[in-house]
């Protein structure tokens, strides 16, 4: 019998090594896997590269991981916000590296990784600072920028319900990056509000099929 559900966030994140590339779901705090991140802080991994839409909000979740000094580099689209002080302080002190990526480009780089594509050409960002030095190509008369996949070693995501095969459904706008990050990481860990029996999730409504998920933890 295959049972991907684990008892605790600590167990789920125990093997994340120093230097890992970790995809962190969420848009602001909606979909933020706060309990998994707290377990990762306790676990002690350092020098992490984080991929997430934001660079932490307030003092919990990703902001706490950044504030604890565990993040060497972050790839995100929208770091600066009214409540991103943990990131702001480290960035201004030169203690965290930022790769700013347009949100849709962050998305399609993750999608390319999950779908096994070598790279993508996107019109987004052409002619801007964020495309400087990148290869471009005119396709159908329109300039595009070459962008490479972002592969995660781990993805930490939050879903609403899951089962022991790793199938997931989400809640409202907390879905955001979860399904695409789940596909882009070698090991995807989902925290869920409820683990249900096989068959309880409507197969027509499963958003992330279990093949993309290695571990499920109820929090």
């Amino acid at each position, binding site marked *: 019998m295959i049972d991907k559900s684990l008892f605790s966030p600590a167990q789920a994140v125990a093997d994340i090594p120093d230097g890992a590339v970790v995809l962190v779901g969420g*848009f*602001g*705090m*909606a*979909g933020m896997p706060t309990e998994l991140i707290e377990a990762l802080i306790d676990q002690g991994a350092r020098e992490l590269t984080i991929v997430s839409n934001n660079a932490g*909000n307030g003092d919990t979740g990703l902001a706490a991981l950044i504030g604890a000094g565990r993040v060497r580099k972050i790839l995100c*689209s*929208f*770091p*600066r*916000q009214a409540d991103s002080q943990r*990131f*702001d302080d480290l*960035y*201004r002190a030169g203690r965290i590296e*930022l790769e*700013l*990526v*347009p*949100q*849709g*480009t962050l*998305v*399609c780089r993750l*999608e390319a990784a999950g779908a096994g594509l070598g790279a993508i050409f*996107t*019109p*987004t*960002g*052409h*002619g*801007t*600072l*964020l495309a400087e030095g990148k290869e471009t190509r005119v396709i159908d008369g329109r300039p595009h920028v070459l962008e490479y996949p972002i592969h995660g070693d781990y993805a930490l995501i939050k879903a609403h319900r899951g089962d022991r095969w790793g199938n997931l459904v*989400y*809640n*409202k*706008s*907390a*879905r*955001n*990056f*979860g*399904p*695409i990050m789940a596909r882009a990481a070698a090991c995807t860990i989902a925290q869920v509000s409820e683990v249900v029996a096989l068959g309880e999730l409507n197969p027509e409504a499963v*958003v992330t099929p279990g093949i993309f998920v290695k571990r499920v933890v109820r929090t």
Partner: protein
Amino acid sequence: MSDGAAKLTREQLAARVARDIPEGAYVNLGIGLPTLVANYLPADGDYFLHSENGLLGMGPAPAPGLEDGDLINAGKQHVTLLPGGSYFHHGDSFAMIRGGHIDICVLGAFQVAANGDLANWHTGDADAIPAVGGAMDLAVGARQVFVMMEHLTRGGASKIVERCTYPLTGVGCVKRIYTDLAVIDVTDQGLRVRELVAGLSLARLQALTAAPLLGGI
């Protein structure tokens, strides 16, 4: 403006933009001032508001006490979903944007150039922390990009310029500019003034604007 021109308030500007959004349009409203446009879309029509973080058919703010942390807009404010609305992941959301499925996007701006270049994400200041979000995707992907902004900066400088001095968000992407003084189309011939607020002459608008304007009302 000390010459009696009736500068639009933020609300009047939002109402003016809303008048140009047809029923049935799929619309993305940027963070800040553009968000106000939603308040002026006719309540008896079907307007499909899209939010980058995975909402179509976005509704107004919830009643106090009914906020749901899992139901927010791109500005991370609490919102609701209309009957018929849907949730989706970021891949679908940016396929809608980049794939040309969004009819109209309304963005704020630091500067718009005469050729439709848009600058709205970064002042370029050395100590500024840049944040771009979905603006570059919307700039290239929406079928029509409307800019909505005050005509002048707080310091009185024109936000409409011959060439942007701030880093660009998108090249030649703006179709129409709505300011508190005028409605201006970006055309192949240049910036064509479509409307002026009451009491404002084209000559006076030109004097306040750092790019050549064409008449055409």
